[in-house]
């Protein structure tokens, strides 16, 4: 599956801006607003999607999945490549994001749990088994003031 890199022009960006506001707008509605034909809108969306530069998706709220506890955890690694530790952490379903970072800590993860009982299972049964974690410094999210989600790594389409 080859994903050609593409350059996006002003028309592409206008289409994306519209889809960000209303991802379910029909090609015809977008075409009418931007003074294009529905066929042009359709083919431009397909071109960006094929290049993995765009996905128009529904995102769902943590609460829709029953996740009521959100934690950010900074992790120090010792005696093992941090990439390996991050790779293992990324496999845990509770981990929503895992990044290698610069600074005092080595890995930053975002964890979502159904409730605080989930913390014991995560800590004692899962994190304790990952070799190389020297320390964990959690921050409990008590309020989410802003959470924009329209720029993200895009994985290749499967099927």
């Amino acid at each position, binding site marked *: 599956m080859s994903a050609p890199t593409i350059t996006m022009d002003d028309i592409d960006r206008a289409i*994306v801006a519209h*889809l*960000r506001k*209303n*991802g*379910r*707008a*029909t090609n015809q509605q977008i075409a009418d607003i931007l003074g294009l034909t529905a066929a042009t809108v359709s083919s431009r*969306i397909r071109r960006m999607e094929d290049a993995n*530069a*765009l*996905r*128009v*998706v*529904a*995102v*769902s*709220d*943590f*609460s*829709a*999945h*029953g996740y*009521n506890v*959100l934690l*950010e955890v*900074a992790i120090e690694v010792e005696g093992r490549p941090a*990439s390996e530790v*991050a*790779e293992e*952490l*990324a496999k845990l379903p509770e*981990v*929503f*994001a*895992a*990044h*290698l*970072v*610069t*600074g005092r*800590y080595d890995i*930053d993860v975002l964890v979502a749990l159904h409730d605080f009982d989930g913390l014991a299972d995560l800590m004692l049964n899962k994190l304790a088994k990952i070799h190389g974690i020297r320390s964990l*410094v959690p*921050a*409990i*999210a*008590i*309020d*989410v*003031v*802003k*959470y*924009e*989600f*329209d*720029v*993200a*790594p*895009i994985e290749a389409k499967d099927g």
Partner: protein
Amino acid sequence: MATPQLDDFDRQLIEVLGRDARVSNRKIAADLGVTEGTVRGRIRRLQQEKLIAFTALTSLGTQGAVKLAFIAIQTEVDRVRAIADEIAKIPKVTGVLITMGRSNIIAICLFEELEELVTVASDQILAMPGVHHVETSIAVKTFKYNARVVKITGAGAIPEAD
């Protein structure tokens, strides 16, 4: 945060639309064996309850090499909300969490040039009254980033076209 009641049909809808939001109500209805009206009604309800939102994701890392950084901020405790609201107004800051832990606020910043991050963290945020300390860590490699499950904070329901 009360757990909303979702049935299997809601979960199927979230799954289908999470892969591609541009599939028509008619196709979803045919695939799931329900009427178009049912699909339309459920989607509207999920949107109104802010359980789903539709968006266009563009790629992190190819769009002029966008990078991500976490900024951990220590503030005076009694000013934390006002400061968080102020930080949320910065356009390059895409996430703001009020936290209990090593800092009071964690901000997520998207930037292309290092200069932009420095401006946000060391100039704009650090200069706010009540901010004691900022600590920036740049994400140098991403192992996981689930962009489909998020916190929907936007005001009001997003209109849906039929």
